[in-house]
């Protein structure tokens, strides 16, 4: 059994898993992230027989009012954002079934963040101790590569795939999240970091930084503000306004880079450690 607290940018989530097999796999996946903290929300996971279930990575579900409803073929249940409580069933006997639980947590934590005015952003982020640099782009653009090269060069990795972005006192601010990409890194920087610069990644034979005109920057960052569900017109307008505010506050450039850490010589921050 697991009864533990998972921190996330908008609070702390109590996770209860009663099934031993699922609990063991969840422990392997999130154990290092659990903390001794008072939770402000709770989710219970149970297993159930779902004969038709198979592994499917899609985050299927919907938001109905304050209810996050999972409708995946191997995960079902709901979480009430207002009450801060929910229960889900995960398919028994499906290989990788713990990833259904991972997907349920993504849906819930993204919505908890959104309610706290934090946008989930498909980007890598590293810190030089005082500030953060974000590197966004589609899958395969090099987010994990940049993260690992930066970590090897002494920067603190925040995440190689997903972070939360918010505006705090007019300053774009990044916070890590419990879900990462394909990186082998397992220790990420905690806390909030003011964003110093954003880069749209392009792998190239040369290292080069090309400033992006503001409209192109807003478009690129808006594309990185991902979601697991359809957004309303007002929410999309909010995403555009947020991206515009971020791009007004910090420089956004295209970073063409080779797969070696010399691209940092163009960016030029201090390193936190070596």
């Amino acid at each position, binding site marked *: 059994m697991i009864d533990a607290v998972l921190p996330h940018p908008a609070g702390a989530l109590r996770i209860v898993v009663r099934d031993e097999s699922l609990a063991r796999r969840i422990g392997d996946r999130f154990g290092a992230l659990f903390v001794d903290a008072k939770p402000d929300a709770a989710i219970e996971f149970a297993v159930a027989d779902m004969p038709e279930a198979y592994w499917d990575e899609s985050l299927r579900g919907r938001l109905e009012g304050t209810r996050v409803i999972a409708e995946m073929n191997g995960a079902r249940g709901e979480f009430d954002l207002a009450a801060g409580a929910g229960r889900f069933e995960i398919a028994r006997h499906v290989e990788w079934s713990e990833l259904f639980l991972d997907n349920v947590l993504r849906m819930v934590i993204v919505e908890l963040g959104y309610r706290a005015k934090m946008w989930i952003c498909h980007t890598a982020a590293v810190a030089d101790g005082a500030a953060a640099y974000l590197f966004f782009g589609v899958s395969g653009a090099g987010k994990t590569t940049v993260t690992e090269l930066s970590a090897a060069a002494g920067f603190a990795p925040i995440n190689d795939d997903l972070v939360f972005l918010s505006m705090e006192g007019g300053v774009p601010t990044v916070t890590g999240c419990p879900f990462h990409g394909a990186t082998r890194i397992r220790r990420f920087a905690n806390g909030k970091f003011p964003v110093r610069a954003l880069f749209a990644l392009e792998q190239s034979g040369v290292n080069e930084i090309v400033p992006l005109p503001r*409209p192109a920057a807003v478009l690129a960052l808006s594309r990185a503000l991902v979601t697991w569900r*359809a*957004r309303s*017109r007002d*929410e*999309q*307008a909010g*995403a*555009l306004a947020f991206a*515009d505010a971020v791009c007004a506050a910090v420089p956004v450039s295209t970073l063409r880079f080779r797969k070696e850490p010399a691209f940092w010589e163009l960016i030029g921050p201090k390193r936190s450690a070596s």
Partner: protein
Amino acid sequence: MTRYRQNREIAWRAVEGQAILIDTREGMMRQLSPVATLVWDALEEERTVEEIAARVAERFDVTVERARADVESFLPTLVSRNLVVELA
């Protein structure tokens, strides 16, 4: 005379004179040129081709005939992509 207006499902924002559009049904994003942005902006209310062309001509210092030709070539693209609604 046919009138046009923006599809109300589209979220958008003008950034430095260029509109960025998000189609909330597909999540598709587009960035419009300054001229297209002027057309788009005009279509916040129902307009005819002539009304839009007059705005473009005034803003970009071209003849109304030239502006009308540009608008007539551009509007069908917006309509076919369901960004703009054609009204009877």
